[in-house]
């Protein structure tokens, strides 16, 4: 469904870097989030224990994924949840449209769901005459402006209070201009409350799907998740097929590490456990609950033993909050549903490593993401692996678009590089030239030009270390000049 166009992260990032307001908004927000997370994990040993446990739970769930999904479906069905499978986003969209149409639903109120973003569900439903309204405050804010989320947990984090104040006064009917956060929130609440009551259907994502009980867990802070899933007569949940865990007790550590890693909260304001439609004698809840389980490339990721770790992700966003690249360019620069480090490994695996070559190379490999990841996804190692996949066609690899990012120029560059560096005599000659004439290289030469945009040109020393050590050996002494 994505155009086979090379998207240039470099260009969009360069544009973002020129926006001082955007940069200030992200720097402030990310510094705050890092500090809040840190405060939640005062003891590094405790943190490591919880990470190990969480990693083990997610790894074990993935190891048994086919069986767990079967068990999960059976238990959901027993609970009265109708389960649907979708291999592609198109299939998932059609399934949801079909469910809505079968109930004559015209309006859908949505709790936050990144999978629905992945499907571009709102635009699809709009084409079919169904209004989809975002009820998460951040999602509501960006929907007013027709934007996409810039962060998976805090979708409107690129905007500051003043920007939202201006936006509300222009876009919400009868709204007065105010910069008071409580008043702004009250304005949104007033609109949304009515929508919850009027909506024909509600949609939500799923944070954890419990196989042994057929339970959908939903983590949220605003109560909009509870409202979306309980007030309208029809609830549709969407999830990626990797979300399943074996037991209810698996959820507790994952929940504990999710909220702490994401927003630095010990617990979220709401934690919903959804186990089916309204039962006989119950006073609330929807009459019908449907669940759409989406693949969209996940099976292919699953098939690779190393890349499978990508699917451990619990979508906390800590990798974004700690990423020095994300902090500077924000989420929109990635031109992907999932931005930041996890997006850099997930998006190319879904859309193709060739077409998203730009994302794979948009990292200094500093390792901050892997260091904070609550489920220890080795993001830098996976990036290196995907760089490999983008430029090579190794046998046995199932990576989407493998080899399609290869260029003759880069091939030759690395061949020359190796040709020089595996021949010490040649290197010695090159080093001699570099130390004698390196100064003469123009600052505007290719590649050097990229370096000297913000830096002076590095100048080689007059004699290399090896040359000095040769002299030392020849003079027979251990003193150096």
């Amino acid at each position, binding site marked *: 469904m994505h155009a086979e166009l090379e998207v240039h*992260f470099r260009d969009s990032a360069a544009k973002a870097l020129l926006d001082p307001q955007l940069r200030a908004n992200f720097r402030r927000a990310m510094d705050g989030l890092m500090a809040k997370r840190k405060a939640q994990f005062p003891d590094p040993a405790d943190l490591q224990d919880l990470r190990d446990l969480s990693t083990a739970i997610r790894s074990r769930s993935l190891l048994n994924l086919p069986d767990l999904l079967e068990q999960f479906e059976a238990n959901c069905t027993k609970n009265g949840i109708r389960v649907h499978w979708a291999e592609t986003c198109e299939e998932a969209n059609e399934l949801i449209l079909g469910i809505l149409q079968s109930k004559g639903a015209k309006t859908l109120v949505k709790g936050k769901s990144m999978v629905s973003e992945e499907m571009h569900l709102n635009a699809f439903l709009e084409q079919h005459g169904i209004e989809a309204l975002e009820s998460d405050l951040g999602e509501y804010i960006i929907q007013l402006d027709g934007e996409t989320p810039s962060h998976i947990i805090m979708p409107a984090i690129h905007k500051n209070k003043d920007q939202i104040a201006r936006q509300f006064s222009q876009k919400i009917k009868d709204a007065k201009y105010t910069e008071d956060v409580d008043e702004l929130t009250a304005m949104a609440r007033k609109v949304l409350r009515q929508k919850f009551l009027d909506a024909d259907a509600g949609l939500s994502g799923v944070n954890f799907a419990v196989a042994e009980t057929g339970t959908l867990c939903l983590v949220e802070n605003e109560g909009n998740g509870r409202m979306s899933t309980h007030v309208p007569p029809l609830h549709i949940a969407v999830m990626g097929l990797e979300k399943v865990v074996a037991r209810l007790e698996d959820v507790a550590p994952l929940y504990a590490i999710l909220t702490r890693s994401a927003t630095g909260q010990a617990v979220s304001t709401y934690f919903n456990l959804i186990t089916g439609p309204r039962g006989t004698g119950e006073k609330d809840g929807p009459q019908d609950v449907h669940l759409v389980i989406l693949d969209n490339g996940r099976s292919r990721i699953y098939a690779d033993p190393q890349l499978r770790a990508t699917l451990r992700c619990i979508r906390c966003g800590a990798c974004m909050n700690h990423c020095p690249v994300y902090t500077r360019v924000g989420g929109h620069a990635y031109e992907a549903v999932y931005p930041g480090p996890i997006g850099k490994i997930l998006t190319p695996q879904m859309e193709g490593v060739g077409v998203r070559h730009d994302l794979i190379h948009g990292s200094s490999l500093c390792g901050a993401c892997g260091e904070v990841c609550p489920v220890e996804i080795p993001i830098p190692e996976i990036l*290196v692996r995907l760089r490999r996949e983008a430029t090579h066609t190794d046998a046995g690899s199932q990576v989407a678009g493998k080899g399609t990012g290869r260029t003759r120029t880069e091939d030759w560059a690395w061949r020359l590089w190796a040709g020089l560096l595996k021949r*010490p005599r040649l290197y010695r000659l090159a080093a001699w030239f570099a130390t004698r004439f390196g100064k003469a290289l123009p600052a505007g030469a290719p590649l050097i030009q990229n370096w000297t945009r913000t830096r002076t040109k590095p100048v080689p020393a007059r004699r290399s270390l090896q040359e*000095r050590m040769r002299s030392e*050996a020849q003079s027979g002494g251990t003193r150096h000049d």
Partner: protein
Amino acid sequence: MNGSKPKKVYFYGTCLVDLFFPDAGMAGIQLLRAAGVEVVFPQGQTCCGQPAYNCGYWEEARDVARTQVALFPEDLPVILPSGSCAGMMKVHYPELFHGQPDEAQVRAFSGRVYELTQFLVQVLGVKLTDLGEPVKVTWHSSCHAVRDLGLKGEPQSLIGQLANVELAPLARTHECCGFGGTFSVRQPEISGAMSCDKAADAEATGASVLLSTDGGCLMNVNGTLEAKGSALKVQHIAEFLWERTHAR
């Protein structure tokens, strides 16, 4: 090595130190010798292979890495004045050579690799005496030294031994300086923005020298500081330690 302090080590200069920071390499060798260790410096050193490895060109990286491993046949520690190259040889060589016929030989080599300050502190337990004038410095921890190699304050503890040196904390000390090897030329805008922020944080410390254990970071931060005409200088920690502790 049986727990006792080794008498003899190999020194691996790294390409950046070889060409841009040979004084740091010489200082590293001198620090080891001053601690009573004989230093063997094999000629024929080129590069650890990290740039090609990181870009997915693993055959090319292996070709180069093999020639380097072959330079260090004896069972001696291999000391590098770089956290990033040491990380490559210690942590990533085993991945790079996984399933290769010479995997076992490479793994044995990787097990002998140390970053210089790590070796000075953990293995040699060196004691330093400061001979220099009072100075205020700041420390840039390289990402690979900390995250790949697991350095836990060894460089800072060496600086801490120097009586006349004040170590000013650097804000966001664990944030990348923006170098990232090929990243600096593939993504010059982002890399440049990161470097400028790091330079500004370093200047805000009021230190006169920024120290680091990695040539890449030093070259990057130095270039950025020079471009903005800053008075702040950068220096490799080996060179700084040697200058402070030994009369010329």
